[in-house]
């Protein structure tokens, strides 16, 4: 899939009247917008534009953005996250009881074999945010996000948590893209997480972390994708003697049980 390169952020999507919450620190303006799910008409527009049916809970107006007074900006919005979903059906998953379901169906309804509008209905995305066009580019780096600095109990000046989209996959699990941000006096951390559990099939976590050091203008973006078969994770949890269904609901509980399948580390300095 193409990298999440330079696209004019959200010009193709009408912005809501609500400007959201924001805070400005050292020339960086951090904004979050949290609104209800979309109505029928905007859903229809988005469906046409995306070319796929959006998830059931579609918070199309929600976003997180980090904008610098120099013109640099990085935004996470719902449309662009969904635009990265495979729309061809090439990487389509099937629910656990699909084979059983289809084998009985084939005998009875030979006429109905068409899968309607195939696409990746797990809404798996490798979205890492949308850059403003006049931004300097990220460059590959080996400098990690300074976790020790982030572990310090600095006062949190601004905190928010928003969902871009969520779908119950017709009660076969959950898929969700959510963002969490905390702004401290000297730095900020943004965690955008795609989490997907297809019951009895597979689990995925794809985290994008954005770190900004206000003093130096350094921005680090880390992307880590993890994936494991459901059964493997279930067995690991069971061997720990834990309540498996409850554990599987929270990505934090299983994060360390999924092996890394893809990662990248990028950095830029704003002057």
């Amino acid at each position, binding site marked *: 899939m193409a990298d999440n390169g330079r696209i004019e952020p959200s010009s193709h999507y009408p912005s809501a009247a609500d400007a959201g919450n924001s805070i400005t620190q050292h020339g960086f303006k951090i904004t979050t917008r949290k*609104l*209800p*799910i*979309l*109505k*029928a*008409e905007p*859903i*229809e527009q988005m469906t046409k534009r995306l070319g796929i049916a959006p998830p*059931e*809970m579609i918070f199309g107006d929600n976003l997180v953005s980090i904008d610098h007074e120099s013109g640099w900006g990085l935004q996470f919005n719902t449309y662009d996250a969904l635009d990265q979903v495979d729309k061809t*059906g090439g990487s*389509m*998953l*099937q*629910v656990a*009881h*699909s084979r*059983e*379901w*289809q084998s*009985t*169906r084939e005998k*009875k*309804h030979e*006429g*109905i*074999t*068409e*899968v*309607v*509008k*195939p*696409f990746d*209905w797990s809404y798996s995305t490798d979205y890492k945010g949308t850059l403003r066009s006049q931004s300097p580019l990220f460059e590959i780096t080996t400098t990690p996000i300074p*976790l020790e600095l*982030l*572990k310090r*109990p600095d006062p*949190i000046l601004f*905190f*928010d*948590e928003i*969902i871009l989209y969520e779908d119950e*996959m*017709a*009660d*076969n699990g959950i898929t969700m893209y959510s963002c*969490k941000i*905390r702004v401290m006096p000297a730095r900020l*951390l943004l*965690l955008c997480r795609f989490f997907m559990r297809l*019951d009895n099939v597979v689990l995925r976590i794809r985290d994008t972390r954005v770190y900004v050091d206000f003093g130096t203008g350094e921005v680090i973006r880390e992307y880590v994708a993890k994936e494991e078969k459901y059964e493997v994770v279930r067995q690991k949890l069971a061997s720990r003697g834990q309540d498996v*269904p*409850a554990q599987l609901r929270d990505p934090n509980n299983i994060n360390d049980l999924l092996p890394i399948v893809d990662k990248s580390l990028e950095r830029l300095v704003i002057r």
Partner: protein
Amino acid sequence: MSDLDKAISELRACKIIPEPQVREICHKARELLIEEANVVQVDAPVTICGDIHGQFHDLMELFRVGGDVPDTNYLFMGDFVDRGFYSLESFLLLLCLKVRYPDRITLIRGNHESRQITTVYGFYDECLRKYGSANVWRYCCEVFDYLALGALVLGTSSTLEPSFTDKSQAIEPVDDDVEIEIMNSRNEVTARFPRSRRRLFESDGLNSSPPGTPSKTGPSGTGATSDSGGSHHSGGAVLCVHGGLSPLIDSVDKIRLLDRKQEVPHEGAMCDLLWSDPDEIDSWGLSPRGAGFLFGPEIVKRFNHLNDLSLIARAHQLVMEGFKEMFDSSIVTVWSAPNYCYRCGNVAAILELGEDTSNGGVIARSNGDAGRSAQAFMPNLAPRSGPGRRYRVFEAAPQDPRGMPAKKPVADYFL
């Protein structure tokens, strides 16, 4: 005050009732439900409700907006449990009301009224947490197996009676030409759509329909005529199911023949009725998920025509506006869980269908019978005139301080 009335008042206060009493009520409910047909016949007037999902305080708001049982005749289209924090209280209250007023409340099965689904999506955990054992969950699941699969609403009116709740005000007569009325939770009319010149707005949850769609002459014997002015007329029969249609079911009678007293199967007609979704496709389609059906406008129009139905009401899918009419108003989705999962910000709706009094209260019993329409189906047939529909739209109840997620997220030092 009987034990049952006591249980009802406890549950109304969102308190759980003792386990032996749950067992007794479930037993009584089963005895009632076993006598019901797979497709329950319900006479208008009736208020049709969609998914509740354990949002107890919003269910109380629904009763406030729609009227209390037994004053209002209710039909709930399933998905009482899971997701919300009060599945137990919500389902047990509805069940107690069913036992107390069996003719004033109808409960049909949703896909969440199943052992397998409730173990994953919250109801099982909630029973375990609130009672310390899975007994109550088991009693409830036994009731699930006896819930009807659908309901057929007969004796509807094509016109709307004035809203009942606002008795203090002078009753403003509703024009006979009004097909759809939308009211808010303060009993104020927010929109009206006349039958003769239907200009429907998508933002109101109504799918667009060409303006000037004429009301059609109904098949003889149904009471529907092309004369839209003047007196009351029948609004036709309305089939209610949780999910939708099945390629294995071409008549309401075929639903009547199913053996429903079992866990929801993974496939087959019973599964489809609880799981399938309408979609803008030509005929039938497979869901991209690899299981489940999608059905298009022609399927619905053909089914309605062959079964002499004016409308299918279903639930199962979240809609921001609380309801969504599709396919030239041949099918409607009703959603009754406002601010779903305490975070979606959507409104909820209930659908009121009035009673046709033009025939001295005599209902055409043959409605919904298979093969009733002698004439061959013509695909270009205009949809027959539907019942007068009042949608009451309501918002989530004020958030309960106990156990509800805080609106403002709590800051934490995540990494």
